[in-house]
């Protein structure tokens, strides 16, 4: 592994997680919002420096990934392959930037390394590589890969009689890939109650709205018909995300689907909800303006 963890990162992350879980909902939400904005600022710097990236999809997923890593997942940055860790799979691998920024904030590797994002030979490729970046579970990039792999992870946990949890974050456009529906059928057949699929429902794919391309609605009914326990959640409401992602699933053996209603580019007014920001790169002025918005809030 090229990247080394930050010293004492495991204890630090566990401490943050403990505090957040013990805090009042308002305190927890405030703290998570602050973290998410700090992570968004790192991502902005990375994309601006690299002149490449997927800021729209990064920002729609930013709050989800932040809540997972700081309040939900039981992971150890200094032992990224600890057998009993909870699993998180970023199926929408093009949102690597937000994952890297989050992993660095969590101490899986130093934040200074983010400066190499997409540089020649950097471990921080445009799509995540588990052999180069600690904390990444499986290499993604081509769409429709993460959920099948997560099914295997959840089966392994079940075979072990382990309570560890598996989460996979998919884009919404990505659900047009048929492999997801293979995985959905099997996940409910195998009663993988500790598997959660989070759909980043920002309603855009690369070139257009999902509903103008190959429509997904009614998405909740689709998942329900595949045997999932389906919930909708505001994908930018930190407290709602925390409650939805940290459910006690012991009494329900249906896998969970969280449809996270999100806004592509969330957090920066002129980037929000505009399809062209799928992979547009902000100019220096736009970067400064975005940075300001993400600091003020």
């Amino acid at each position, binding site marked *: 592994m090229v990247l080394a963890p930050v010293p004492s990162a495991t204890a630090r992350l566990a401490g943050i997680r403990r505090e957040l879980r013990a805090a009042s909902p308002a305190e927890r939400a405030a703290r998570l919002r602050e973290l998410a904005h700090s992570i968004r600022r790192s991502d902005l710097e990375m994309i601006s420096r690299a002149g490449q990236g997927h800021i729209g999809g990064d920002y729609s997923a930013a709050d989800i990934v932040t809540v997972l890593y700081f309040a939900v997942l039981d992971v150890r940055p200094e032992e990224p392959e600890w*057998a009993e860790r909870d*699993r998180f799979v970023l199926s929408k691998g093009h949102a690597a930037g937000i994952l890297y920024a989050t992993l660095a904030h969590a101490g899986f590797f130093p934040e200074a390394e983010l400066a190499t994002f997409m540089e020649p030979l950097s471990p921080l490729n445009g799509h995540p*590589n*588990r*052999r180069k970046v600690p904390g990444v*579970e*499986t*290499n*993604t*990039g*081509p769409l*429709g*890969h993460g*959920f*099948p*792999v*997560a*099914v*295997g*992870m*959840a*089966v*392994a*946990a079940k*075979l*072990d009689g382990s309570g560890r949890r598996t989460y996979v974050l998919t884009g919404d456009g990505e659900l047009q890939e*048929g*492999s997801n529906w*293979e*995985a959905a*059928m*099997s996940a409910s*057949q*195998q009663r993988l109650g500790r598997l959660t699929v989070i759909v980043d429902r920002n309603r855009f794919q690369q070139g257009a709205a999902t509903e103008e391309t190959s429509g997904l609605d009614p998405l909740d009914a689709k998942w329900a018909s595949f045997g999932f326990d389906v919930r909708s959640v505001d994908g930018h409401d930190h407290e709602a995300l925390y409650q939805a992602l940290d459910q006690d699933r012991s009494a329900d053996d249906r896998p969970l689907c969280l449809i996270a209603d999100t806004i592509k580019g969330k957090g920066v007014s002129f980037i929000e909800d505009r399809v062209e920001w799928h992979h547009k790169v902000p100019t220096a002025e736009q970067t400064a303006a975005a940075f300001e918005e993400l600091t003020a809030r």
Partner: protein
Amino acid sequence: MSTTAAVAAELHDCRKAFAETLIELAEADQRTVAVCNDSVGSSNLKEFQQRFPDRLVNVGIAEQLMVGAGAGLANGGRIPFVCAAAPFLTGRALEQIKADVAYSRTNVKLCAMSPGFAYGQLGPTHHGVEDFAWLRTLPEMVVLAPADPAETREALRWAHQYDGPVYLRIGRTKVPDLAPHVPFEAGRATCLRDGRDVTLIGVGTTVFAALAAAGKLAAEGVDARVLNFSTVKPLDEEALLAAAAGTGRIITVEEANVHGGLGSAVAEFLAARTPVPMKLLGVRDEFTPTGSPAFLSEYFGIDAEAVVRAARELTGAGQGATA
């Protein structure tokens, strides 16, 4: 001239050795699991399923999920043997094999059942002949094609203890036992018969065609070396250099597409190191017509007679000599 390998008369389906060995590996190691696509019968996993019902993950007719789930099981510390008919495992799930298994370098064993022409009259959709070409281009991937039941057992045991992606061809076409048995060693070709005039390189079923051809050629005064290339990747370069130096002529014969297959691999290597006259026998640039495995072997010129003809041409022996 020394003669070594002979062939016993009794014929076997390598899937039996595969199934028995998988059960042995599952008994010995809790981590062993099988993953399949509704292929419990065709992958010969019925007994495995009875013995280890929890450790047989049948995902249904869903190859992309099957391979992805294999990678996820490996992430959870399991050693998954992902079993499906060769054409569907490779063709349908090639991107999963690339991204989730090879690029992610997960400890997944891809077991391609009934490769080559095994499905005979079912036609080219069911023939696994592109696998060598496809799998060989993936970094991290080991590609194995054991020839007989004993080698199938040993290749599986090796794959189980090796930490990394492995692709194994498990033959369905009945084959004899190679005798005497030469132990399987990953990455090493085994010499089944020494010779000085030409080297016949076989893999899987065609090892037997090469051996039979060598016997016929001997009667004509052509001394053929026979190599069993049960590891297609990584290529045994040493054996190839020795064959080029020792026999000066090489014939590859495979139940696979010559474009990108083992013959291509051998030619690519030798062309850059020590070019020698070669003939590449295998599936031409044509979809397979209807026919039994035996018919198709004859049609594409990978049976013993075709190997004999190719050897005569290459060595200048007999009629129609060109060399």
